[in-house]
């Protein structure tokens, strides 16, 4: 019985297949041949410099100087980037919708392989969002960031930290003091009630044109001194810690941030 059924089914299948061939041929005639575009893996190395030299953290001395000639050292550097975007001259873009948390005490976090493969081609620039944009900066949304306590307080607008840059400086009396440059949503207390201003910024890396024809990698360099120099001269004696609730300090980091990052192949 089973054999008989099998035979019947086989014959039916053969008949259908034979009848189907002519229609397949018709379909093939109308199919427009597609060009297969190869896709490649992009790996980003997150590097850090101060005044063009390799960055050293947790030094015993105060090896760096800001634009006000205030000596400082760094003891913690953590930051978040998202939405890495490759743009072409014709305005088409490829965006990796993920985010990446960098912690200088975790060597593995200094390399970021995008989940999105990048199609072969020539891209005129690479960019990213520092922090989360308004759409992505959703309070409590990300398990891994919640687990490490990367949240930005609800009273300051919620969402997540974008930056934690901490260290020590020598104050106006040459006495060691601490600074904590934490950045996230900016609360403006000058309005009633207080209002919240998004504080991420979009970076388009200068001279970041790439021609993609194989798996590739590049560096995104953070030039740390730029946070405190350009165009707003940062005074550690005024803005040391806490600065999270200070609207002006939050916006100053945003403004200075636009010149912090550079591209290196």
């Amino acid at each position, binding site marked *: 019985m089973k054999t008989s059924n099998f035979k019947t089914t086989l014959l039916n299948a053969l008949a259908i297949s034979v009848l189907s061939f002519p229609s397949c041929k018709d379909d093939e005639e109308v199919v427009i041949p597609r060009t297969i575009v190869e896709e490649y893996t992009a790996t980003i190395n997150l590097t850090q410099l101060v005044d063009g030299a390799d960055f050293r953290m947790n030094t015993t001395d105060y090896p760096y100087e800001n634009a006000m000639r205030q000596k400082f050292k760094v003891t913690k550097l953590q930051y978040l980037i998202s939405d890495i975007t490759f743009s072409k001259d014709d305005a088409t873009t490829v965006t990796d919708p993920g985010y990446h948390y960098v912690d200088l005490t975790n060597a593995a976090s200094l390399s970021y392989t995008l989940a999105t493969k990048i199609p072969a081609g020539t891209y005129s620039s690479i960019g990213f969002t520092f922090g989360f944009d308004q759409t992505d900066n959703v309070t409590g949304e990300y398990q*891994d960031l919640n687990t490490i306590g990367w*949240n930005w307080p609800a009273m300051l607008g919620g969402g997540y930290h974008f930056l934690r840059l901490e260290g020590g400086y020598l104050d106006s009396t040459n006495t060691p003091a601490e600074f904590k440059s934490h950045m996230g949503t900016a609360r403006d207390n000058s309005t009633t009630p207080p209002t919240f201003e998004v504080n991420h910024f979009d970076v388009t890396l200068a001279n970041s044109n790439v021609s993609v024809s194989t798996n590739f990698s590049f560096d995104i360099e953070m030039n740390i001194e730029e946070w405190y120099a350009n165009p707003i001269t940062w005074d550690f004696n005024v803005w040391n810690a806490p600065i999270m609730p200070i609207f002006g300090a939050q916006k100053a980091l945003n403004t200075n941030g636009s010149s912090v990052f550079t591209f290196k192949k």
Partner: protein
Amino acid sequence: MNRISIYIFSIIVLLASCRADDSVDTDIPPVAPCEPTPYSLELPPHFNRINYPIIPADNPMTIEGITLGKKLFFEKLLSKNNSISCGSCHAPAYAFNDKGMVSSLGVNGTQSIRNAMPLFNLAWTSVTSRRFNWHGSAGTLEEQALGPVRDPLEMQESWINVVSKLQSTSEYPQLFQKAFCTSEIDSNLVVKAIAQFERTLISGDSKYDRYFLETEEGIDLPGDYTPTAQERRGLEIYIAEGKGDCFHCHGTPFQILWSNNEFVNNGLDASPDSGLAQITKDPLDLGKFKTPSLRNLNWTAPYMHDGRFGTLEEVIEFYNSGIQSSSPNIDGSQKPRSLTAQDKADLLAFLNTLNDSSFVNNPAFRP
């Protein structure tokens, strides 16, 4: 004998022979399949806000393993003179802390160096710092459980003796057989079982958890909770940079665990205890200790790694005015606060919303 009788006789003989064969088979002990029952952690719904704990691939959780681990946790055979167990210094009614002791007493009354840590939500340490104990001396829960048995200030026993004692009992070989498919006990299996039990010690049912579940997760439980005005003010002080600024180490409500599990020098002493540096040999780790969770503070006094503060009021006052700013590697958040008496009372009121009485009273965690 007629033909029918012969047939009947033959059938009886055949049946008898069959029965005889059967009896031979039953002389061979049946090999019972060893299949410990897999167990998944029972997490409160809002724990989905943080990463799921990492369970070691070589120590999957099973009901039999947890049962054995609980029995071993309260087993005094693990100590030199069979006088103390893990549970002697980690009492369930005190959130697995040592009943108010500044430092715990080992075999023959030897005094340990540091305050016994409370035990709950330990499974998440493997997601974050991956270091256990105040000074980060163990990388896994299993490794942590190895230490106290042979510590000269704690249980003072050799693992060889512990294994021998357990092996000679009538019940432990059977329990290990059920949990690990072998009745041959060894120290690795002992600590695996204890770690399995410890991973079940989950605390997530405080007043604040119930408030969070309703407001953030939309889960309306019987016995839901609305914080008082004072508790709400306390949370704001807890969060605010320039006020309490507790959250940079102990997390916001979305962090759930109320500790980032990292190691920090909070400025207790100008010349601090070595802390994490004892393990890493890195001078940058001098004075750093594990950030404890703020859950269940009602039962975990005294506070700090050396139990120097008997009350939460003392702890808050330390952060307000007692920080030693010259302490090496002091955390950037550690600056003297300017909290008013009202601020301090509000902060205390908030901290008390993190007490989870259902955890300390959970019969599943009792011997």
